[in-house]
């Protein structure tokens, strides 16, 4: 029996909106979450803007006990926990019951553990104060810190996995959760990813000279995917979470169904054929997209919208070319395509899950969000697809099937196929 997997809950911590209602409003209206960061100017970074959630630490008290709150410092943990618990509640569940939920697991990823927490450890240890570290640092620097907090809060008792695949992490987490349910290993999976780009991580990307540096005085214009003036990405932070559920299980408990996840694929170009540590190999990307379509049993002409990776670097053109080749569609026949990164920047591991939340919302509310800052479309891209395929204003249109892909360092790719829920499949 082939199990169907549906999305029943969403949670998001995004630079342009805390929580689903604010985020939905922001992506409908093309609201930027990119801001100037005075600290980055003081640190002499080339890029001095970032996508930072308007996050108040005190709000965490609604998510953890007072004892847990005392001593919690990790931002990626905070973002991830908040998005995950919001998604859980959004799906109509109570958070924090006494029972272990054996049928529910979690795949939640990040790129790096809490670097700022690790810095505090370095400082203490180097000062000869190792004994003052206390009991709360290990749980915050371990890579599974976020999943440990989430599963502990909700009592999740199935597989608990912290995955990491650079910028494909979030997309990969969602696919892993989908596969566990499909295989009958779990009834529900809480999936997503989280990232806090602190100054140290930011600096490492800045030094690679791949960040946007010409719009420091106009932060909202700094992230410009698919445009001629795209000069690098803008790092962002945040988290996205989805509740994936076996359709039968969801119907039984009369859950609200946002959308269906039809399938997906995850692979690597092997850093061959033009692929490298930092660049995706075209054959790998194309294969990932066609494998995802085959897995989802969807024909390329059925795709209404692509939620691209599209970070605002030179790789944008290559990405569009790969989509054209994989779908065998181009010009006016190309699907609509948008990049949430135009509004919130690139939140590395969190990108895939925040963009997936955006994808599900576009299906639920039948619109394609705008690409902001697309004032000067890249001429090379216009040779491949028609200008009308890259909306600069919200488009209200039937959105039945969306392809969501992300590509990460290490030449890793992940692609998901979401669909509007139709009870007859």
């Amino acid at each position, binding site marked *: 029996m082939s199990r169907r997997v549906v999305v029943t809950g969403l949670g998001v911590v995004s630079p342009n909106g805390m929580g689903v209602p604010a985020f939905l409003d922001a992506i409908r209206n093309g609201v930027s979450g990119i801001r100037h960061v005075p600290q980055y100017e003081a640190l002499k970074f080339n890029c001095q803007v970032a996508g930072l959630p308007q996050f108040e630490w005190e709000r965490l008290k609604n998510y953890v006990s*007072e*004892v847990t709150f*005392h*001593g919690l410092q990790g931002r990626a943990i905070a973002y991830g926990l908040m998005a995950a618990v919001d998604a859980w509640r959004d799906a109509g569940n109570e958070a924090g019951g006494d029972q272990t939920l054996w049928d529910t697991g979690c795949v939640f990823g990040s790129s790096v553990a809490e670097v700022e927490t690790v810095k505090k450890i370095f400082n203490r240890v180097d000062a000869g104060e190792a004994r*003052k570290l*206390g*009991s709360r640092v290990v749980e915050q620097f371990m890579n599974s810190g976020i999943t440990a907090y989430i599963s502990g809060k909700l009592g999740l008792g199935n597989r608990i996995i912290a995955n990491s695949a650079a910028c494909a992490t979030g997309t990969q987490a969602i696919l892993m959760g989908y596969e566990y349910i499909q295989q009958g290993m779990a009834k529900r999976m809480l999936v997503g990813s989280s990232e806090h780009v602190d100054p140290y991580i930011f600096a490492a990307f800045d030094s690679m000279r791949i960040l946007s540096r010409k719009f420091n005085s106009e932060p909202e214009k700094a992230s410009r995917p698919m445009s001629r003036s795209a000069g690098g990405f803008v790092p962002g932070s945040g988290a996205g979470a989805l509740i994936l559920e076996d359709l039968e299980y969801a119907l039984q408990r009369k859950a609200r169904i946002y959308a269906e996840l039809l399938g997906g694929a995850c692979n690597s170009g092997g850093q061959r054929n033009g692929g490298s540590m930092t660049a995706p190999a075209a054959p790998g990307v194309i294969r990932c997209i066609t494998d995802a379509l085959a897995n989802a049993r969807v024909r390329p002409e059925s795709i209404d919208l692509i939620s691209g990776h599209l970070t605002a670097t030179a790789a944008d053109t290559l990405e569009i070319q790969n989509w054209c080749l994989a779908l065998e569609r181009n010009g006016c026949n190309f699907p609509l395509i948008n990049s949430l990164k135009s509004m919130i920047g690139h939140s590395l591991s969190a990108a895939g899950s925040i963009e997936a939340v955006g994808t599900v919302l576009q299906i639920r509310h039948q619109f394609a969000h705008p690409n902001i800052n697309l004032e000067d479309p890249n001429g090379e891209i216009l040779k491949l697809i028609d200008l009308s395929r890259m909306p600069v204003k919200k488009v209200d249109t039937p959105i039945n099937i969306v392809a969501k892909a992300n590509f990460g360092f290490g030449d890793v790719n992940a692609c998901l196929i979401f669909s509007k829920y139709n009870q007859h499949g």
Partner: protein
Amino acid sequence: MDRRAILEELKKVLEPYTENKELLGNIDEQTDLVKDLKINSSNLVDVIIDAEAKYDVEIDFDSAEKMFTVGSCIDVIQEKVNK
């Protein structure tokens, strides 16, 4: 520093680690930190680190192992303070 004064300060140290604050209202020297106040045993390390800062003392590992009731905490702190 007399035992009464240490107890009052100790309550403040224990407060962030005690989920049910009402339990702090009627503590006495017999109160067990883990059994009675329901403090997570892994947090006893943090209680000791905070107590060190509060009373400006250093509590060695051997002394710390004795600190499982309010009374034994006061014993150790009093000994270190008066040293």
